[in-house]
């Protein structure tokens, strides 16, 4: 592909629908473009919008695979468009918006609302023991624990896992990969004071980890390569322990 003499002509088939336009009906449009070296879908879509169809809707912000704005279905698979190199795709490229999330228009979907609701539902914040004391030295934490929490914190809430999840596609209350990973991140944080019984209520219901039917597309599509399989195993282990605790609580 570095040889521009043999540059490919890419053919994009893009889903179109503008809910704000009464005359708009869902359909696809086709655009063609000459491939250039290191072309990403960010570069390609920007060119299409700026040179061919200025009404085309999509979302990019960081354009460096950090902010999670740009997930879409690329040839049937959820992916971050900004870091998808066209060189890794065939000449014919189909782009659709992520399912599960509310459509804003064309390739743009409302992930913000979904993730805020998930955060509220799982109370995804540190349930602290004491108020912050500005004069105190920080509490200690081993670097290994910090690194493990960071690993869970790396999720960029792009929604790829949610879109790939068979269950989330039919049940919009299911926490899906991103939600379960978020819960695990707080669960393993020694600063969070929630008890196992409290975690049990969040994780064990219909929306939680036991509802997962184990197809594991989520782990395959995660652009940050989060070890979701391990995350679910951790949640199951901790929750089963919690159920045991909850039962014996009741016994006394």
């Amino acid at each position: 592909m570095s040889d521009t003499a043999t540059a490919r002509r890419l053919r994009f088939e893009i889903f179109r629908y503008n809910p704000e336009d009464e005359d708009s009906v869902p359909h696809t449009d086709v655009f063609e473009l000459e491939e250039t070296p290191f072309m990403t879908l960010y570069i390609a879509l920007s060119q299409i919008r700026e040179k061919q169809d200025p009404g085309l809707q999509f979302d990019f912000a960081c354009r460096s695979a950090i902010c999670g704005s740009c997930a879409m279905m690329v040839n049937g698979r959820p992916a971050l468009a900004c870091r998808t190199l066209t060189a890794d795709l065939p000449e014919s490229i189909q782009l659709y918006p992520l399912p599960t999330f509310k459509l804003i228009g064309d390739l743009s979907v409302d992930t913000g609302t979904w993730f805020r609701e998930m955060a509220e539902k799982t109370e995804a914040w540190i349930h602290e023991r004491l108020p912050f004391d500005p004069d105190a030295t920080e509490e200690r934490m081993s670097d290994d624990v910090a690194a493990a929490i960071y690993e869970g914190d790396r999720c960029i809430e792009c929604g790829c896992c949610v879109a790939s999840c068979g269950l989330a596609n039919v049940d919009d209350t299911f926490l899906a990969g991103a939600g379960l990973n978020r819960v695990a991140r707080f669960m393993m944080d020694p600063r969070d004071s929630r008890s196992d019984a409290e975690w049990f209520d969040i994780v064990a219901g219909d929306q939680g980890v036991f509802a997962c039917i184990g197809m594991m597309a989520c782990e395959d599509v995660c652009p940050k390569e989060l070890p979701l399989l391990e995350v679910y195993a951790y949640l199951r282990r901790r929750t089963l322990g919690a159920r045991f605790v909850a039962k014996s609580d009741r016994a006394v």
Partner: protein
Amino acid sequence: MTGRLVTTDVLIIGGGLAGERCAIEAAAAGHEAIILSLVPPRRSHSCAAQGGMQASLANCVKAAGDNPTVHFLDTVRGSDWGADQEVATIFAEEAPIAVRELAHFGVPWSRVRGGKNHYFIKGEEVDIDESLENDGLIGQRDFGGTAKWRACYAAAGTGHAALYAVDSEVVRLGITVRDRTEAVALIHDGSRCTGAVVRDLRNGSHFTVIAKATVIATGGYGRIYGQYTSNATINEGTGAAIALDTGVVPLGNMEAVQFHPTTLSPSGILVTEGCRGDGAYLLDKNGDRFMVELEPEKQELASRDVVSRHMQQRMRDGLGIDSPYGPHLWLDCRHLGEEHMRTKLLEVWDICRDFVGRNPAKDLIPVRPTQHYSMGGVRVNKDGQAYGLAGLFAVGEASCWDMHGFNRLGGNSLSETLVSGRIVGRRVAEYASGHALRADTGLAFAALADAERKAANWLARSGSGPNVYEIRDAMGETMMHKVGIFRNGDELQEAIAELGQLLDDCDNAVLRCKDPGVNPELAFALRLKGMLRLAMTVAKGALARTESRGAHYRSDYPLRNDKEWLSRTLVRWGAGDSEPTLSYEPTGIIDLPPGHRGYGSDERIEMTETLEKHNEDVLQEQTRHGRLASTEDMGSRLRRGAWKSATG
């Protein structure tokens, strides 16, 4: 009309670290706060900060002896004496609190590992025994322009971890966030700001928010440099632009623009300074580590302005590596090893793999300097209160609070967002407590009608006019090549003429998309004029400032001139004026006398006025230029002479 007029106590325009931290403070004081953001707040550009956040915690061996005074010294030197020294003092003192507070909110800071640790320092492999006593405290890494290791970090995802933690606090407090909205105008009567007109980016409609206090926290505006920036596509400067539109609020030091030495060529995606902090080298096409010879003391870790200029000069001298996108240099991380790259610098590993298909443990990384940070912004006093309009505040990168002067040190910006978010948030809360909601709906609806008229005018214009994206690209070329790393009078004149032409073109530009609803072309067009006006203030300020200071480098005036230019540029754009008006105020009370930074050139034109004389007039002069009174007296937080013990 329902929904078209919303009222609240505090309106925060911007959901990055600065805006959210400020909102938390206002909400914790019992006020209702609404945050507006172009994107879901966690996607704000704060999430892209990789390397670290400066605070003098002094937990590592190489950080030993660090304290707020040393941090203050580094910051003022880094600023090339352009900073307000009282603000720099407050900042350095409160940065450790801000870092620890983030730990309380949940940031998984990398921690000190007691015992033997393996580091690279100035290219040498070194083993250092970290004390067991400090095991588990928050660790620090090296960054440019600092005397001590001071950058606290969460791997190479510091901004991400910080933003997620702060946003989870926003969720906990139940603060309303309206994402996909954009403030397009401020509502004001010439002396008080009472809210903003907002465009709903989900459907293209407009509404107004009336508030007791309004805060601009819209981040940087690197996109006035077109593609030549490390900033996100959303960093288009609308916050600074709507402040400029008021005609009464000045922007400060707009010519102070930072270029980051290492962004990927050609995409401009940032490769953190943490790489060089951890020991990476810069190489030219001959494989020479040129920084060692040019800056023997700090080498690759001199301040960003100095490193960027050396790199640019290297490429001008034909020692760059040629590519279809112009020359670049190499960043060499190979000796740091795969394990280090995949843990402490994981984000860099990913970026190299995803965008240039390289493995930094084996391959060299193509880098070149591009626009990175906006030191200038909405000029505010130490409370964050904007000059000229009561009830308007600004915080974070959008503001000129002014602790960065003419060059920001790496890692000082994340700390600023949180330190100033806390402080300004408190002042905003006090203001909201002391003032009633002034629901002048006439003023609000007039501003709303004006915003709607602007959008309608764009849609109504037809025929064959210029295209908005071409104007944007032309602006970027002009800014990078004529208002960039090296500047001179002739090119700046040309830039001003070109920007003037682009402003005219903008008035005649024609949209090709007339779709109802979101209309991305219209949304961009509505920002374009503001971006061009910001670009013009940068170019004008740069032309007028006939000296070199920090990131502002004039080849035709290569010396720092403390005799004539120990001042801050203020720029206003009066209603109906065809160009902006510049004026100058003293930078602030000077405690640390101007001197050598410790890197870069040691030559300068000395100040002739005595410090006593200089300091006498600061309050009066700044007040004359629009500064509103701060809660505490000017200078009350300075720790006069404290630096003497740190330099001794």
